[in-house]
């Protein structure tokens, strides 16, 4: 899923500066699962903004609403009635797809992103998420023991660990595991070094973002 985190509160306060009526819009998709922009987080941010305004003696109304998904026009439509209420600012608490879809549907409104969209990943443990995919558009993780070096190697190396791999960690930080250490150790344990020996050819990045912004059209689904 897409992993996001809330922007620093001061940056969000900057978005609402001088405004008297704002709407926070959450999303029940990925950002609910990663505890960044669901109903609960919308409530917390709304309280923070209200308290802050109260402390400074400012008049600020903060309304809250959470959509099923902000990346789907059919759900984005559900905001039509609320938007009529004329907010000074609408803060999306979805990944960056959310504020873009909202802006397109309601072009007269002023939308702000309240989250930073970080990566495609998963939860390693409660409260810990890690990046696992860069959406290169041509998955070959079966060649690497089920691990993605494009994403998880700091240099996206395709042919083994660099000279900076030491005791299982990456040269950039002791906090970063060397994925090539894990891949090669697994291959050696399974005694599969020979299958693993062929040089991974020079990658075609045209299916990745390097080929320009991407779009999928599934004819059978298009009405």
């Amino acid at each position, binding site marked *: 899923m897409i992993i996001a985190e809330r922007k620093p509160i001061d940056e969000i306060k900057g978005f609402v500066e001088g405004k008297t009526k704002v709407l926070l819009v959450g999303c029940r998709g990925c950002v609910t699962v990663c505890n960044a922009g669901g109903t609960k987080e919308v409530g917390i941010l709304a309280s923070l903004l209200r308290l802050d305004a109260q402390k400074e003696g400012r008049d600020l109304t903060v309304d809250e609403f959470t959509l099923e998904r902000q990346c789907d026009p059919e759900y984005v439509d559900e905001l039509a009635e609320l938007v009529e209420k004329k907010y000074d600012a609408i803060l999306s608490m979805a990944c960056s797809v959310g504020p873009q879809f909202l802006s397109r549907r309601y072009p007269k409104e002023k939308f702000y992103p309240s989250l930073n969209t970080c990566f495609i990943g998963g939860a390693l443990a409660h409260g810990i998420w890690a990046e696992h995919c860069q959406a290169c558009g041509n998955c070959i993780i079966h060649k690497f023991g089920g691990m993605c070096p494009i994403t998880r190697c700091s240099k996206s190396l395709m042919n083994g*660990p660099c000279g900076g791999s030491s005791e299982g960690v990456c*040269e950039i930080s002791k906090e970063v595991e060397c994925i090539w*250490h894990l891949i090669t150790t697994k291959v050696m344990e399974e005694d599969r070094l020979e299958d693993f020996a062929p040089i991974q050819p020079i990658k075609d990045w045209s299916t990745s973002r390097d080929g320009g912004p991407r779009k999928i059209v599934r004819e059978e689904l298009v009405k």
Partner: protein
Amino acid sequence: MTREIKTNSNLEKVLASGAFAVTGELGPPRHCSAHEVEEKAKFLVGNVDSVNITDNQTAVVRMSSLAAGLLSQKAGLEANMQAVCRDRNRIALQSDLLGAAALGINNLLCLSGDHQKFGDHPQSKNVFDLDSINLIQMVKLMRDDGRLLSGQELPPEGRPKLFIGAAFNPFADPEDYRVHRVAKKVEAGVDFLQSQCIYDMVRFRKFMAQAVDMGLTEKAYFLAGITPLKSLGMARYMKNNVPGIIVPDACIDRLKGVPKEKQSEEGDKMALEMVEELKNMKGIAGIHCMFIERERDVKSFLEQAKLLPRPKV
């Protein structure tokens, strides 16, 4: 061991002659004064068979390896131009290789490159379109098959005659995999390999024995990396802060055992002892002297190692 000569590289000729080769290293300046390159080059001319010109090493902006390489060639050295995959994609790399070969560069060292997080521009975007092994393949394709990656043919007179190098590091992990990574470099078509700085001879001997067993030293020339320890402080720094370098406790203890003003001499002595062993080590074709900001000491070191004068081939 006789191998076909593929380029006009002096280093290749020395290696092919069977002589014990010596390469040096020259770090380009962090500005555009040609004078600094010329000054460093003076200490190396006549003392090494070829000199590595680093490519923005540790991701710090410096004069380009191509420009500094040409300056050093003008000063009388033969450059071994380093090229990293961090900053240039396949378009820029191929273009620079064509330019380098056109201007008389004969050697190219293919590296992945240090991550920019270490350098002076950690905010930059990295490239890594290729990795070092892919880069070796690409240079070989251009030189031997006369083609660009696109398939575009190069006319016979327009193929970059580059002696292809790469790095190897027996001290990085996983230890048992390192020789297999080198095997991939050999398979990709590398002509010579230079190692990371050696302090742990036990591990180096073990690695070379594996490389010899696998027949790798018959297919590429292996040069052993030498960086004498200047002080106890340097030894401790290398041990604790440089990933992929092993400084055994025995080295540290030996430096501890001498007064501070004698540590540099002791460091040189340890390195000279290693060089003596390396001269007779199976599969080792020479040494690569990385005297970082100590170029002026290379000559006396090589004299003591009895590696001067350099062969004229």
